[in-house]
């Protein structure tokens, strides 16, 4: 299959999947049985020694995990020792049914790493991309992620999400005495490191959509505080003190505001703070619980959880708090709404019949689709291209683990990070 034809077929298949899933109850099975053939790609070891081999392995793993691509077994490769400077022997790659080929060459000169790579359409015998990256040698993984993003974008037509990081709550110590530390890692689970020391219970970290800054909540026996944490400077500051418990923070799309909840006398309401003026505005006043505010990408609307009508449900209102309207309509409870970066969907956690689901619906509440089912799935976060969701999954009595599912529900897999973690938050693409 030609690459463009493949992409068209893939788009058609994904569209068909969305179209045939009207019933939430059947969605999970139908979606996971969806039939989309990933594109066969060959990613031979880049020339230039071990780092070349390592880079190609990271690229192949990224493409594999996306579910849109199927990296071929290097043992099947006929042409060996490719150079980025020469045209590949296309016949050799056609023989093993590779549709695309990614090859490259790494040169290390002192403290400078240079990677030349090419992306080829095997059937048309055309170069689709030819790029050069330079960096310092210890940065080789980021170079691999940038190449992965370039390949993903060229072949799928959508922005990639591989040169990104994930902040999350690393958990250790066992249930009932769990230590919760803020941690950060690459989107493929590499380079994990702690950001806090476990002296307080931290939760719900969220990335700024525009900068390397996060907001999170820390809970101590006598206080609940929302922090802003700049990952580049290491500077941390409190959002301020409020009369009552403050929690559930999330940035606005322009990074200039934080929405959060304040609890007073048992009633939780939504507030928004302008970060430059440090003034807060109260958005809801009803006696129900109002939590988990999440802005639409254009900043004009807010999705949130409220139990004002009994059970927790997802509502949407104007950014000024006006015109709140319930959008979730199925049975069970709906919490943790998160607007997708494209604006197309709102992801949520649904609890029904003793099971938890990660699902998506349109912002008007239509086209609900459940992507996962388990004992406890919770807290979705979107990849910056809106194609993949990460969330935490817990088995009875077990520690939570990070999982990923694509927006069709077809590709469900554990995150390649071995430790226990919860509350993942995806960064925007790095610069």
């Amino acid at each position, binding site marked *: 299959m030609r690459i463009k034809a493949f992409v068209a077929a893939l788009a058609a298949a994904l569209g068909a999947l969305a179209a045939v899933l009207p019933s939430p109850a059947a969605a999970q099975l139908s979606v996971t049985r969806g039939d989309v053939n990933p594109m066969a790609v060959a990613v031979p070891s880049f020339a230039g020694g071990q780092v070349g081999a390592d880079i190609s392995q990271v690229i192949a793993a990224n493409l594999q995990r996306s579910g849109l691509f199927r990296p071929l077994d290097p043992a099947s490769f006929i042409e060996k020792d490719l150079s980025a400077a020469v045209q590949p022997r296309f016949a050799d790659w056609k023989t093993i049914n590779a549709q695309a080929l990614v090859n490259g060459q790494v040169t290390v000169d002192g403290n400078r790493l240079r990677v030349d790579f090419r992306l080829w359409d095997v059937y048309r015998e055309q170069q689709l991309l030819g790029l050069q990256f330079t960096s310092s040698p210890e940065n080789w993984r980021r170079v691999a992620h940038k190449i992965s993003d370039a390949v993903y974008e060229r072949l799928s037509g959508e922005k990639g999400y591989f040169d990104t990081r994930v902040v999350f709550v690393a958990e250790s110590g066992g249930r009932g005495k769990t230590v919760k530390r803020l941690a950060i890692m690459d989107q493929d689970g590499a380079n994990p490191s702690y950001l806090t020391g476990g002296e307080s219970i931290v939760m719900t970290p969220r990335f700024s959509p525009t900068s390397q800054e996060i907001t999170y909540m820390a809970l101590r026996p006598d206080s609940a505080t929302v922090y802003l944490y700049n990952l580049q400077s290491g500077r941390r500051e409190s959002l301020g003190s409020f009369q009552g418990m403050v929690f559930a923070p999330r940035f606005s799309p322009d990074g200039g505001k934080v929405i959060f909840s304040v609890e007073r006398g048992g009633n939780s309401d939504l507030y928004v703070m302008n970060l430059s003026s440090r003034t807060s505005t109260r958005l809801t006043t009803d006696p129900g619980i109002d939590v988990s505010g999440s802005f639409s990408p254009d900043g004009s609307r807010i999705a949130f959880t409220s139990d004002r009508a009994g059970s927790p449900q997802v509502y949407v209102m104007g950014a000024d708090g006006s015109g709140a309207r319930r959008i979730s309509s199925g049975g069970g409870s709906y919490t943790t709404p998160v607007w997708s970066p494209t604006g197309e969907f709102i992801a949520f956690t649904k*609890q029904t019949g003793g099971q938890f689901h990660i699902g998506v619906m349109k912002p008007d509440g239509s086209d609900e689709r459940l992507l996962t089912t388990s004992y406890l799935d919770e807290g979705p976060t979107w990849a910056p291209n809106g194609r993949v969701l990460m969330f935490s999954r817990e088995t*009875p009595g077990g520690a939570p683990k990070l999982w990923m599912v694509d927006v069709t529900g077809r590709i469900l897999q554990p995150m390649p990070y071995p430790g226990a973690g919860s509350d993942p938050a995806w960064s925007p693409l790095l610069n």
Partner: protein
Amino acid sequence: MVRSLNGRTIVRLALVGVAAASLGACAKKAQPAYPTTTTPPVAQQPQTPLPPSGPGDVGTAQTGALPGSQQDFVVNVGDRVYFDTDQHDVRADAEPILAAQAAWLRRYPSVNVRIEGNADERGTREYNLALGARRANAVRDFLVGQGLESSRIATISFGKEQPIDPGSGEDAWQRNRNARTAIVSGAR
């Protein structure tokens, strides 16, 4: 653009000018430096949760707890009451315990308390924080209704973060839906 990287056959490579330019720019600052406050993991145990106490504990103690002490309160009164699923109303079986708490606190007027609301794991993190806060406030309102000054009673919610029973199942969830009255100052 014609390039030769290693002396083999030279082919025409269409280097994308715009992309190459932007990547060249990025390459010079591509060093990600994310300062972290703690890199090596240091095992730290949180405060050990107190053992569950409840209706069954009231009046059954054979201890010589010092009257007015925290132990006296926990053992002879009971520091924890329980809630139904998704509910925050004070249950009938909790009222005698809370009434006893109020009586004890009237007897020792220098004691201040903090009500800690808790939820089971069958809910999401943020909502359960709000639910735990409702439970803490329901207990606080009850104690105030028994004549205690509200200034002596703080509240906080731990949501589902501090289960007293690590199990999964109805029994564990029932124990984990509670509000604990913790003495913060003034006890003997």
